[in-house]
């Protein structure tokens, strides 16, 4: 079963535009929601993460918006750059009892055209 659903599968954006990737989760007990960025030939690396006590978290051009009642969260990349072209994964986890296990979404391939 896919507990975290991610969309779209692929996204093409022009340089300077806004990239938006959405995720929905099923398990209401999840309380840690990271986004990972993966470049070709590399392993995923943590980009930004949020916990449900806040509705938004911003780090530079990257923002997570979190809607607990809808069980959805999204990644916004402002002023998208060609260097942002990568695969993005949302994930969800349970603090404390899960030993850091992550449940990942299906991934979004982002292409930013110059």
């Amino acid at each position: 079963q896919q507990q975290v659903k991610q969309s779209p599968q692929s996204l093409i954006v022009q340089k300077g535009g806004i990239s938006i990737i959405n995720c929905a989760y099923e398990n209401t007990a999840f309380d840690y929601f990271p986004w990972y960025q993966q470049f070709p030939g590399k392993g995923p690396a943590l980009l930004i993460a949020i916990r449900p006590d806040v509705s938004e978290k911003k780090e530079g051009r990257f923002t997570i918006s979190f809607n607990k009642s809808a069980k959805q969260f999204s990644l916004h990349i402002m002023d998208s750059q060609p260097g942002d072209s990568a695969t993005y994964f949302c994930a969800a986890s349970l603090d404390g009892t899960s030993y850091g296990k992550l449940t990942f979404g299906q991934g979004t391939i982002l292409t930013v055209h110059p």
Partner: protein
Amino acid sequence: DVKVTQSSRYLVKRTGEKVFLECVQDMDHENMFWYRQDPGLGLRLIYFSYDVKMKEKGDIPEGYSVSREKKERFSLILESASTNQTSMYLCASSFSGLRNTEAFFGQGTRLTVV
């Protein structure tokens, strides 16, 4: 700087072979994970370990086993490789605690079973 190192970038094995994928981390992390990455499916957890000699099944453990004899090393074993195990395998590690922390990934091993 945290480093998770996987022993091989690329492997080609024959159907029925026993395959060992090795992973070493240098940050004294308690938790270690093996994920499988397939297009359109994201990352799926095969096995994880939260301590030496301790292991737990993930979401897709069938056909795999693991070994953790030392804290820094976590091995994934394909008992009898099959073509449907052709995939990218990612090892990760993280600290253990009440709140989940960043998982650090290796660069991945692309396994082809012929």
